[in-house]
């Protein structure tokens, strides 16, 4: 199983869970598994055309998947996937 860390702003769409475990062989499968089990999350991660949104960064362990094989990046048991959206708060 691979753990996907859910950032605070998106936890309202995962039943308040901070992490979701999925079974997947690559990043794309892991994320589609995530939005299948939590459908409200889909529009926050994907555009209407089904592409990952530009302001949502996905990391495999500490590497940005854009610099690996993107959604084709393979994952194995025990890996950590993090979704890191931009936040702007400061006041």
């Amino acid at each position, binding site marked *: 199983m691979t753990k996907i860390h859910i950032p605070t*702003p998106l936890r309202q769409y995962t039943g308040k869970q901070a992490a979701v475990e999925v079974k997947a062989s690559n990043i794309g499968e892991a994320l589609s598994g995530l939005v299948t089990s939590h459908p409200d999350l889909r529009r926050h991660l994907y555009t209407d055309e089904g592409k990952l949104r530009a*302001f949502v960064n996905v990391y495999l362990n*500490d590497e940005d998947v854009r*610099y690996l094989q993107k959604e084709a990046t393979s994952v194995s048991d025990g890996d950590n996937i993090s979704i*890191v959206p931009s936040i*702007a708060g*400061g*006041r």
Partner: protein
Amino acid sequence: MATAIDVKPETVTLNNDEILRYSRHLIMPEVGMEGQLKLKAAKVLCVGAGGLGSPLALYLGAAGVGTLGIVDFDVVDFTNLQRQIIHTTADVGRKKLDSAAEKIKAINPFVNIRKIDTRLSSENALELFKEFDIIADGTDNFPTRYLTNDACVLSGKPNVYASIFRFEGQASVFATKDGPCYRCLYPEPPPPGLVPSCAEGGVLGILPGLLGVIQATEVIKLILKTGDPLIGRLLLVDALGMKFRELKLRKNPDCPVCGKNPTIKELIDYNEFCGIRGEEMPVETTNADISVEELKRRLDAGDDLFVLDVREPHEYQICNINGHLIPLGDLPKRVNELDPNKEIVAHCRSGARSAKAADFLRNAGFHNVHNLAGGILAWADRIDPKMAKY
């Protein structure tokens, strides 16, 4: 270390009062007299004197940063005091700049404080940044974040960055000579409304303290040229789990501002870029809006109105006007609880979320939907002064 910062310690000296004040720095080898003189020669600009800016400016002032610029145009209000520790209850109603400058001066009269009473904009940012060595971004909205980043890249100043949401924060050092910038990490902002602001989402009071102190630490390290700065690293802070994680950031060769073939060579219209009028701006009123006075009159007259409250349950607990509660996010799946033939008045805290709810309902075939202008805050101000405000 590849940073553009170049302070001139030979231009300043410390008097005996300053030597005594900074003695705990002077006796440690990582600072010493040379480091303390670098701090005194340094010019740091804090963008914002709010949650992040409070601890940031207090610590930089105490540490002996010689010139501290603060850009802010805001006034202290009661909801700031839970986290903006540079301001006190007695400061409510004062300019944040005056309040902040007074506190820093009280801690360290040797700091030269430059109060810059303006909103940072594409017109003034480059001119302003020129006069400083390091920029610390403590703002609260996407347009100013992108503006600060681009102006840092274009003027060659490091951007010491932190941002916060509820109980999570991010920190990094952007726009150093060989390091990535904010746009390398996030080429585009999220569409408006998808990521809630602190005013909508809330923020744990200590969190800006935690992140602002991390920013101050990074500023000091850049000035002293010591340690490993957060260049090329994004620090993620989760205060609830008390977990600190770190992600690798890379300079994106295709970055529109710091890449090999940049397309952004001057500052742009950042509100337009972010697709918003600004997160905290009041929503424009339209004919479909209803005023709190009108709502009160019609409720008193016994009109058959359905009041729909689209806030969150924990907000409903603070104050309510007996509306039917369906949080905005749940509206699509709970829309069947509503009768399309009824006249509906949607409200939230200040009118922004209920405007979205009203739009959604009209698109879903509801013909008689109003948005309560100014939300429950307007109701508390003008109809029921005993009601709690938040």
